[in-house]
């Protein structure tokens, strides 16, 4: 069944899917990682993606939709190449997150959660991303940048547009556009996001294929 369902998937993601199904004590538990994989394959969580995940886990598509729609990171509408998530929860709010959000929306030409016309950006405001010590903070494809002043936020967007990085690296953006961090990040890392899906080796990222 797996083979048929995943006919359209890349070899790497097919392998990852099989590994996920094998790793959990129960197939259904693999639904969340599989949804990330499906998002890598389809760009976002399409109806087909949910059908595929249903076939893999033995759930009905309605059940997969029920799970997928519970979590905010499974995007069921198309997302731009760079998903910018600006934290507007309490600590960031106190330190000017609304101005940062406005600057980012302005620079990318997006508003109210829409994607930019060129399909490059989606901008959302999100609840706390655990960067309160480095407020205000944002994430690009879930890669974190802390201490982002509004003008730096706009500059970051311009940079994304102009440089168009294939891989979004937290450390690189932090160095170029970030400010105060919640804590010392230690060494620079070269693993980052290749899509608006968290860059974690089992789902695909720029890094080595994981464990």
């Amino acid at each position, binding site marked *: 069944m797996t083979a048929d369902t995943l006919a359209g998937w890349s070899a790497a993601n097919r392998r990852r899917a099989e590994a996920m199904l094998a790793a959990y004590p129960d197939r259904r538990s693999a639904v969340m990682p599989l949804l990330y994989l499906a998002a890598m394959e389809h760009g976002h969580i399409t*109806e087909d993606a*949910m059908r595929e995940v249903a076939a893999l886990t033995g*759930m*009905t*598509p*309605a*059940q997969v*939709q*029920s799970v997928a*729609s*519970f979590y905010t990171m499974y995007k069921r509408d198309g997302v731009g190449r760079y998903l910018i998530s600006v934290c507007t929860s309490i600590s960031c709010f106190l330190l000017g997150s609304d101005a940062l959000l406005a600057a980012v929306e302005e620079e990318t030409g997006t508003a109210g959660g829409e994607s930019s016309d060129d399909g490059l950006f989606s901008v959302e405001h999100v609840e706390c991303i655990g960067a309160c010590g480095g407020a205000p903070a944002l994430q690009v494809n879930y890669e974190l940048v802390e201490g982002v002043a509004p003008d730096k936020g706009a500059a970051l967007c311009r940079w994304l547009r102009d440089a168009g990085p294939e891989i979004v690296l937290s450390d690189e953006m932090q160095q170029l556009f970030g400010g105060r961090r919640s804590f010392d990040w230690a060494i620079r890392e070269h693993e980052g996001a290749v899509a608006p899906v968290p860059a974690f080796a089992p789902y695909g990222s720029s890094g080595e294929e994981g464990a």
Partner: protein
Amino acid sequence: MTAETGDRVTITIDGREHAAEPGALLIKAAEEAGTYIPRFCWHPRMKPVGMCRMCLVEVETPRGRMLTTACTMPVAEGLVVDTKSAVVEKAQEGVLEFLLINHPLDCPVCDKGGECPLQDQTMSYGPGESRFVEEKRHYEKPIPISDLVLLDRERCILCARCTRFSDEISGDPLIEFKDRGNLTQVITFPDEAFSSYFSGNTVEICPVGALTAKPYRFRARPWDLEAVESVSMVDSFGSRVSVQASQNEVLRINGVDNDPTNQGWLSDKDRFVFEAINSEHRLTTPLVKENGEFREAQWSEALELIAERLGSVRGDEVAGLGGARSTNEEAFAFGKFLRTVVVTPHLDAQLDDGLDPRFLAGTVARATVSDLEEAATILVWAADLKEELPVLYLRVRRAATELGASVVVVHPRRTGLDDVAAVKLTYRPGDGADLLGSLRSKRRARAEVTAARAALKDGPVVAIVGRTSAAERPGLAEAVAAFARDLPGAKILPVARRANVFGALDMGLSPELLPGRVPAASAQGRSALEEAWGPIPEPGGRSATPILEGLRDGAVSSLVLLGCDPARDHPRPILARQALENAGFVVALDLFLSDTAQLADVVLPLEGFAETEGTVTNLEGRVQKVNRIIPGPGRSRPAWSVLGDLSRRMGGDLGAPSAEVLMEEIATVAPAYRGLSWDRLEWGDGREGLVVPTGDGEQPLQHVPDAAALDGAGDGWALHAGRVLYDDGVLTRMSPSLAALAPRAAAYLGPADAGKVGVEAGEEVILRGPYGAVALPVGIDPTLAGGTVYVPANLPATAALGAPSHVEIERLEGGGS
């Protein structure tokens, strides 16, 4: 906590002490003690989820009083509860207010208006007026989520009863929550309808008008409805129903929670079949054929004509078929009419698509449905229960998922129960005896067989035994029963189609049986019956197929049919047709002008379900009362009355001034029914239905067939002619909402076999068997055993094939690609 089963604990509710069952949920214990705690999400037949929070009460804890939901709180000794404190009242009012802020105020046009718990509880517990000034949630107004059900998300209070039912109870989770928090809604997957055989239950248990059923949307206001309890006559499970009518029309059928049977649930066929009752195609007047055309006739004229024609031939030239869709009283009257007025031994309630009547009526160690609750292992070697006995399927499913029974399913292809089965054995029809042999032996076998053997060692075992399809030899089921009888703690539940087939056999509608499960060959039984009835014909009468052959060949001249359609239902449709065409005289008592009735000489209109009173007997042998709420259409009459009238005109007497008197007679002449009465079923100890005793020791029948005689050999492809729920049976056909759900006909082959034949899905083939041929598109069914072709039986496109054991498959050249 340490209390043993049966011990009661003492709990205090609002200052008064009550004895309660330990571990029972507080909401239930309180209700038993006379205190009703309001609720929305809790349903007694589903696991508590404590979501709606309407049932909040205060309980005393070592850390003081605490609010808790009564639906999730098990009672224990010393529990002290306050259900009416100020805190509780405020909390309940608060919950209601929260539920109402987004609820539309459209009660006047809502189907639920008048019987809506939200409406009722707002009256009793709710806040006065709304202080919610923000905008309400908006959704597209009712959207169809299946052919039968509409969903209005604005009315939904998110109690999850529907989603839990379809996940927990029916096992088809097609309706689910989507999104979260304040955006949570109930919905299906796009383009994936809520096509469940049980969808109507969600409409019934929806506490508001969010889910509505198309067949009764806007048809009636609840306060206009009258209701009567009855028993569904769609299949032989005997689900208890509430039949609701207004102005002589049945407008709704709901489930009734009868613990031993349906526990509140119904199949959609049980529920929406009322459309057939109201059908404009119902017969309303007697019809007499003249020059090949029917004309309307008076009852007196039609009955005179029948009396004359039947009276003009020797009694044993007449045969009777049917009765399995009638009440026991009607079936009894039919048997008495045939045996004492016509004086013929040729009678049969089955059409050779069931099992040996001596087996069905005489199963020793017969199981009740409730035995499933205690079973360690359940063997299902029968038709696909989900298709033929859907509520029994629910009960087996519950035993597997909730009560931990391991289910062993044996069938030629996938069945509804496979998902919950511990072991599934697939076999080619015809090879059943071999498979049975290997289950019985200890020799090495394939893994599933070994697993099945192991499971079946764990008792108590309940074996649900029947014919997997009419194409399979009936003896196999008996051999399976004989095998199962030796399993630890074994009980057997025989299954067969047609609503009251067990009742009809119990009433003696078989050449092998006299009323009350007495073998026709028993001299003692015969003389006892003759004492009451006078002389009856010698045993050895013809059963269905010999009757039809006799009609075709001239040995039998006349046929009386009671709600019976052999032209469609007999496994050999051509034989049935020839028999009816060759017959000298055919009279059909029916609700509809069936294919068979069209070939009759006289047709008499009957009252049916919801129109007549009587009793029915389900597959456990449970006798329940069916009731009347509307008159039948036109000049239709109950069968017992028609037969009584006809008897008098033929110089006999059924002694049947009423159906109730017939029951009194049944209770005296039918041993197994001794002592039964309508009163007992309505008012006495029999409100859940009474299982008539099979009495192990004194059981008159010990019909154990010879497994070795079951040879499946034959030429060509083994045919599996399995039934589907929405087939072309008259009830479905006459219920437009259900008729639309009939599946597409096809000839299904395994992928490898399709390759062998050289066909792909969608291409046409001709299936040719000894009884007929049909052209069908090919479907692929990977669950079929090799060498098998599956054809859903009794669809318009497949009926002509009948149910032979083997067929030839021919490719239609040039068809499809």
